[in-house]
């Protein structure tokens, strides 16, 4: 598909028919009806992407001997930290340098895949005349050779009878049923799902390598002070704050709610890590003040 949001003709035909499909469980479906949200169809979007192989393999190669002579040149503004070997020339296999850097090309691949799949789902929902998409489910799977990702996003498009077509396109949320009802009752309107990914590559310095394999020279003596692996700590901390900041940038004054943060790590060689936190959550906007909350009444369930 050259135009990312053009729907196949068959899809347009299906969506125009007068029956609906919904991915909601029966209880969520019932709750939607109770809220005055009328399901109009299961909106779906897919996108398969691949990172340019030249960049991918240059940076995903094995550690140790596979590393280049000098550290990677990182573009301005991206996270980078360099670590210098304090030993001098020990052998050709000795790690003379160590580096942590952000991998914007991985992040860009991910963003492209997610954004396209999302836009296609929203396009379907728009075609259905929906005001929103509830109970969104998303998935990323690796297919075929390294570096290929398939994104799928789907949710149930819903309409509020009697309201005009939304000018900014339908809102979306991972929530459905009672949880969605509670959000609205608490004074928040769902705006959109938010997803962000950051990617940080660690090329271990000699010290980091020794510490991660337990052969740090100062520690052979029983009872000696153990040592923190600063390079890894620094990379993990950076990866987590990067992903949070990326999500924050999408908020524009709204709140991010019910966040789930999953950190995927791959170790190429001792201390050579690829750290990839994926953050997902619901962007919500306050449309009325919190009612003064009573102190919860405590109950003991006899069950």
């Amino acid at each position, binding site marked *: 598909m050259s135009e990312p949001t053009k729907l196949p003709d068959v899809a347009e035909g299906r969506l125009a028919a007068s029956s609906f499909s919904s991915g909601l469980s029966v209880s969520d479906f019932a709750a939607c009806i109770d809220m005055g949200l009328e399901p109009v169809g299961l909106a779906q979007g897919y996108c398969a992407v691949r990172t340019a192989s030249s960049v991918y393999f240059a940076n995903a190669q094995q550690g140790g001997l596979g590393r280049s002579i000098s550290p990677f040149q990182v573009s301005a503004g991206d996270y980078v930290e360099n670590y210098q070997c304090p030993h001098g020339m020990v052998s050709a296999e000795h790690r003379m340098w160590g580096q942590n850097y952000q991998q914007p090309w991985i992040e860009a691949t991910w963003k492209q895949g997610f954004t396209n799949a999302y836009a296609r789902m929203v396009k379907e929902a728009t075609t259905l005349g929906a005001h929103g998409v509830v109970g969104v489910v998303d998935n990323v799977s690796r297919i075929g050779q390294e570096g290929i990702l398939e994104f799928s996003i789907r949710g149930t498009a819903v309409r509020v009878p009697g309201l005009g077509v939304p000018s900014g396109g339908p809102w979306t949320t991972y929530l459905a049923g009672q949880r969605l009802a509670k959000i609205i009752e608490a004074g928040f309107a769902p705006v959109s799902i938010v997803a962000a990914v950051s990617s940080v590559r660690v090329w271990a310095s000699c010290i980091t390598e020794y510490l991660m394999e*337990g052969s740090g020279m100062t520690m*052979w003596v029983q009872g000696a*002070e153990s040592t923190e692996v600063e390079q890894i700590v620094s990379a993990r901390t950076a990866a987590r704050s990067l992903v949070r900041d990326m999500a924050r940038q999408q908020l524009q004054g709204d*709140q991010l709610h019910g966040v789930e943060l999953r950190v995927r790590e791959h170790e190429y060689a001792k201390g050579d890590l690829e750290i990839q936190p994926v953050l997902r959550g619901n962007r919500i906007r306050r449309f009325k003040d919190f009612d003064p909350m009573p102190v919860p009444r405590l109950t003991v369930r006899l069950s």
Partner: protein
Amino acid sequence: MTDSTSPGSRLDLKSEVRRAVASLEQKTTGSASSTSDLSIDEELNLHSIGWEQVELVSGVSVFSVPAGLWNWGQGEILGASSAHAQAFSHAISRIHKEAASAGGHGVVGVRIERSVHPSHVEVSLLGTAVRPIGAPPVKPEEVFVSDLSARDFALLMIAGWQPLGLACGASFVYAPRRQMSAVLQQSSQNIELTNFTEAMYASRESAMERMQRMAIALKGTGVVQVNVVEGPMPFATHAVGFAAWGTVVRLAKQSHQLLHPQMVVSMNDAVVAFDAETLA
């Protein structure tokens, strides 16, 4: 929150939904954003005691353990115990700093991930920084970190208690090898391997004592929701480990506030005759 027991006072949900959907047509107010991993129930619980969430915060640490340490020796494996203790305290102080700089007074619902490897110990903490609504920032050392959920935090506060921080104790101990003569003599009997039993007790005592010491250092009177992980180390045949952690609490009011919970009979749960989750 509406009172679900009196249907008359219930909000008209349909009109609220229309209002919410219609509000999205207006320009954003541009207030300060916040991030949180709390559920709406937890947020409402927090709000009911006058607290709000500020930011998703984390703290991580990795400490190296000397290689070959796990296999031969006597008594406690000090290198591993100290790596565990330091990894925990570094991760905690990092989450303190993040929370304080975001304006939080504490972090609730902290998810604790810890793993012990032959050559390193990793600790990762993730939670939501919270504060009394609109309160000014505090110093990092005044921040509390707790693995209690926001709901349990609210309950604790209502009962007149306050969380002070996380306490953790861990100890790894060698189970000495039996002498060859003992192995031969005992080979045809059912016997207790006292070397393993004793190592378990030794590590348990040190770990619990360390956790208690941390709790007292935080001026706490007790530790709630204690988690225990114990047993042989999967990668070493003659080493056992014990780790315990929980939230340190102290009575903040004059006395414990009686809560007088109201009994309800829930109609939607399957009958559970026995709940074996205790100490799981």
